[in-house]
């Protein structure tokens, strides 16, 4: 390792690095700067005023709360369900590849291709309410009520379960079979081996799955937006809606401040998770 950064490695890196700085690092810095100004042109430095204002803004707080609640539900749910599915796939004697393939399919299907189906299923005059009416249950407003959050959780699980299954299946396969044999010799049952060996050896996978689930939980905004538009029911008014709407009203101080807070949260969260993983996996 050298103190001087100039060698052929830098030469190969340079084209990508220049683009990375121009399209990400530089504008992030500008955006951070805007968050301390009153307006983008003829700006005056206002310190943390934008941040204070944002934390008093009703729709920002609502969108932040909804985003956190949504993550709080779907990240753990996705982890538990995909772990169960991965353990089952790992146990079956055949068709492993086919099952993994089936769970991966929703991941590659473009959101737009499925929107009409979801609407036909969840609309007030849709198929689900048709089934409810056959059972003489009164209809549910799936897309515009408190329930909508869970409809989106369902779509999230449908789309992202396969991603986590692949990671868990790989993680389980990496655990040496020897551990299980040793445990059996010691008289441990299937349940005890699952908790003592499978779960404890999967900790690095858990960290990774958590990070990816958080990232993917932001991506479900595509479905929310395509299904319910810019101003959905308030139970699924997300951070992304707030930012999009600030964007259209050209409210730069709010927008850049919201961006900076989001960047800060993600940085702290990912660093904490990575540190945790490094400590555990050594």
């Amino acid at each position, binding site marked *: 390792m050298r103190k001087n950064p100039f060698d052929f490695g830098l030469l190969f890196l340079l084209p990508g690095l220049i683009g990375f700085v121009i399209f990400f690092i530089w504008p992030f810095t*500008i955006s951070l700067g805007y968050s301390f100004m009153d307006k983008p042109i003829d700006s005056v430095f206002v310190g943390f005023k934008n941040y204070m204002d944002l934390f008093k803004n009703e729709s920002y707080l609502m969108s932040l709360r909804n985003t956190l609640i949504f993550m709080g539900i779907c990240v753990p749910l996705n982890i538990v369900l995909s772990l169960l599915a991965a353990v089952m796939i790992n146990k079956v004697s055949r068709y492993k590849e086919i099952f993994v393939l089936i769970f991966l399919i929703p991941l590659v299907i473009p959101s737009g291709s499925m929107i009409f189906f979801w609407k036909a299923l969840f609309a007030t005059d849709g198929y689900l309410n048709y089934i409810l009416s056959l059972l003489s249950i009164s209809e549910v407003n799936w897309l515009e009520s408190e329930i909508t959050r869970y409809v989106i959780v369902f779509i999230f699980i449908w789309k992202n379960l396969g991603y986590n299954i692949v990671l868990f299946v790989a993680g389980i396969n990496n655990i040496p079979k020897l551990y299980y044999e040793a445990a059996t010799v010691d008289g441990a049952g299937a349940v005890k081996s699952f908790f003592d060996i499978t779960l404890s050896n999967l900790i690095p996978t858990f960290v990774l799955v958590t990070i990816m689930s958080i990232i993917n939980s932001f991506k479900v905004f595509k479905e929310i937006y395509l299904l319910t538009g810019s101003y959905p029911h308030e139970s699924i008014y997300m951070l992304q809606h707030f930012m999009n709407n600030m964007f259209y009203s050209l409210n730069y101080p709010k927008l850049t401040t919201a961006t900076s807070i989001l960047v800060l949260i993600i940085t702290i969260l990912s660093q904490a998770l990575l540190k945790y993983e490094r400590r555990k996996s050594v």
Partner: protein
Amino acid sequence: MRAKIFDIVIISILTLLSAIFLFPLLVTVTNSFMPSSEIITNYTSKLSIFDVLNGIAKKFINIKLLPGTLTASQYKEVLIDQPSYLLLMINSLKITVPVVIGNVLVSLLSAYGFTIWRWKYKEAVFLVYIIVMLMPLQAVLVPNYIVADMLGIKDSYLAIILPGIFSPFGTFLLRQTMKAVPYEYFEAAKMDGDNDFKILLNIIIPQMKSGLAALAMLVFIEYWNIVEQVVIFVKDYYKEPLSVFLSRISQDNISIVFAASCVYMFLPFYFLMIGQKNLEKGIELSGIK
């Protein structure tokens, strides 16, 4: 015997779960072969005069898995009679293809650069890549818009394509893949007097074909399914990619929506079928280690 029953039970559970997962897809595919009259009967809940006469007070959408009559008329409409769908798909290609090619190339060079760079602080630089990689799209959109505005490209696809090309995920993924190439290969080639470029071309690239395929697939899927950037940067309807347009299909167009959806999902679906192993490898490699 007990093990066998256990096996059958698990397979049954997984099969049931698979059926639930495949149902939306299956409906979309089978319904794309329905005649438009059938689609309109099934997917509209407006009451006709006959319904009223028959005393029906409310109608629901009725999803039917199997068409009453099989016909390819929807596909004829989408692919031949209404060229607008193909034009919109070309829009999707215009965004996706440059991003895939550009990102794979840039990422390959950058990943190789990170591998052979010998600067003390290179891991700190790499950490910045990882942090940006973890940012949700919405956090990146504002910075993208600022740059696009300054470069005067905010009304063109370039505003979407350029950040896509330099997006850090590919660099990360390919660097992970490169770590799997044994270090002796580098040393042996150095001994033979090969320069760094030759090593990349003759030794590294052939070793990581599946990593490159995995990256190309993941980037393709992401940009084929583009929504957020389009909402911000594309203002004309005729410039939209199919992903956004399909969600806008109104009541007048429902008779062909399933065929249009199928045409749109065909490419990523095809890539999954031929490259399942590569995609799985790509997902596994996205592990941060």
